[in-house]
């Protein structure tokens, strides 16, 4: 039991955002000479609890938890704490006695994106929101977005549809949005996955619709740099979230008693001006 064992459970692993977290984790663990166990819940909280239980059987020391659902995962947090495992929630918070939560300022991200969109539209026109899976970070982005849009009198939010953060679903949904709203001028997508689908739909329609989003995924950044209708994404820092989260856990493991309960990670506007130099 000399080697440090780190477990990380992801809400999904077929999204570059989380895959890059996993890469950062592997790099950091290699530096430390620690073992890593990773699981993929596929958006299923029940499976995620099982995954955590299985990791606890393997005797992990640190649990990095990227919960599918904050409330649903609580049992896993309790189980981990019962075995004195250090629990750090990453990206989205979890209920229960989590030691530290490291996550983006999701409300800010939504706010910044939509403010950018509204300003790019000159403060007026019809906009739509391309929603996603109803989990807390996504809900916060939508909340932030709406708050920003309300600051502009000329902007009207005409529809909110769900693209499930899936490129192919989003594509169809946005095509229909464009059909039904001939005056649509802007779309905010809750993440880059959905935004890429929306971008394909906009380009396919040949209409002039501006698109903003949240994440900073490589594809999105490239599309922004290329001068497409995709004008902005509010970047998060997935790798940094893992690095900071792991650091908090290690600090506690080494005996630090005043570990912050929450470490918000800033978000950053990426647009055509800085896109070329940005990467996760």
């Amino acid at each position, binding site marked *: 039991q000399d080697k440090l064992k780190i477990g990380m459970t992801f809400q999904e692993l077929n999204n570059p955002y989380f895959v890059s977290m996993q890469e950062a984790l592997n790099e950091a663990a290699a530096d430390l000479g620690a073992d890593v166990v990773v699981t993929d819940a596929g958006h299923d909280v*029940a499976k995620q*609890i099982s995954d955590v239980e299985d990791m606890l059987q393997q005797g992990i020391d640190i649990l990095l938890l990227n919960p599918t*659902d*904050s409330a*649903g995962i609580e*049992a896993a947090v*309790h189980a981990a704490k019962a075995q004195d495992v250090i629990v750090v929630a990453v990206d989205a918070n979890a209920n229960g006695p989590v030691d530290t939560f490291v996550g983006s300022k999701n409300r800010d991200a939504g706010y910044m994106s939509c403010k950018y969109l509204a300003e790019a539209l000159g403060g007026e026109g019809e906009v739509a929101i391309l929603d996603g899976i*109803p989990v807390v970070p996504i*809900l916060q982005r939508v909340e932030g977005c709406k708050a920003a849009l309300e600051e502009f009198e000329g902007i009207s939010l005409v529809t909110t549809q769900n693209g499930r953060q899936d490129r192919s679903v989003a594509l169809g949904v946005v095509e229909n949005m464009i059909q039904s709203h001939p005056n649509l001028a802007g779309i905010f997508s809750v993440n880059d996955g959905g935004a890429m689908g929306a971008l394909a739909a906009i380009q396919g329609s040949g209409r002039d619709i501006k698109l903003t989003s949240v994440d900073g995924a490589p594809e999105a950044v490239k599309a922004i740099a290329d001068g497409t209708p995709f004008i902005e994404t509010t970047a998060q820092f997935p790798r940094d979230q893992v690095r900071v989260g792991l650091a908090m856990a290690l600090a506690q493991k080494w005996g630090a008693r005043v570990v912050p309960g929450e470490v918000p990670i800033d978000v950053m506007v990426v647009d055509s001006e800085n896109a070329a130099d940005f990467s996760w």
Partner: protein
Amino acid sequence: MSHEENTGAAGKSGGFTLGRLLHSPLALPLIGLIVVSVLMGLASDNFFSLNNILNVLRQVSIVGILAVGMTFVILTGGIDLSVGAVMALVGTIIAGLIVNSGIPAPLAMLAGLVLGTVIGLANGALVAWGRMPAIIVTLATMGMARGLALIYSGGYPISGLPSWISWFGVGRIGVVPVPVIIMLVIYAIAWVLLQRTPFGRHVYALGGNETAAKLSGVKTQRVKLVVFGISGLTSAFAAVILTGRLMSGQPNAGVGFELDAIAAVVLGGTAIAGGRGLILGTLIGAVLLGILNNGLNLMGINPYLQDVIKGAIILLAIYIGREWR
């Protein structure tokens, strides 16, 4: 495993012997279970600890309970794709009744069980009297149940349940987890229903030859109605455990669980066309699936690769089983 067990492929009377077991339809699922367990035990030190075994059983409990209702439906020659969605809907409504409507938890759970049964009966009525194929009916109700769960909850998980509800998900009686006990009790009841009651005979008869069953005077439509009702009820029981495990109502829970439940039933040796199979086989099938998930996790296998390995093992198990039976 009693000698009067009706497998739909009965053997002769007689005591319990190894030879008899080897010729029972349970033989193959059991062998599969043993082989996979041994492999997992060799690959991972923790596998055979009491703790881990209880852990696997607890994880199995939800799909295991869904698979009970699925077994009834498949034995009659039907299929129920709605179980996962019904579980999510019932779980969401139980949580909503408690948290939003302030209804006492036991009452809310009772309401949930009734709701699950009613949805199951609705499926059954559409199949029996509507004479529509089960796969389409339950495909449609799957979408509808999921949609209703999301509408009811507004898409948000519903949390804030009284803490004692977690007893259903993580509590223990002695060392045995509560969900495991609930699951075993449900299996025992299902066994009695299938092996010891006229209704059970009728379930097998319906799957064996519907026309003949009808001509013999079996009320085939009522049997169909009831098996889907049972499936709805077991989905609701699964929802109670799920609520206890997640301490919240999750409208998105249980996506794809119907496929796991079907896999458990078929791995357990039940014919997908109906008429033949044992509820004990389903239990073994569910545990086998659980062990696969758990073992592959314990071995630290890449999550993507786990899907591939799981698929291959299921194919292999069914392939061998097909010759045996």
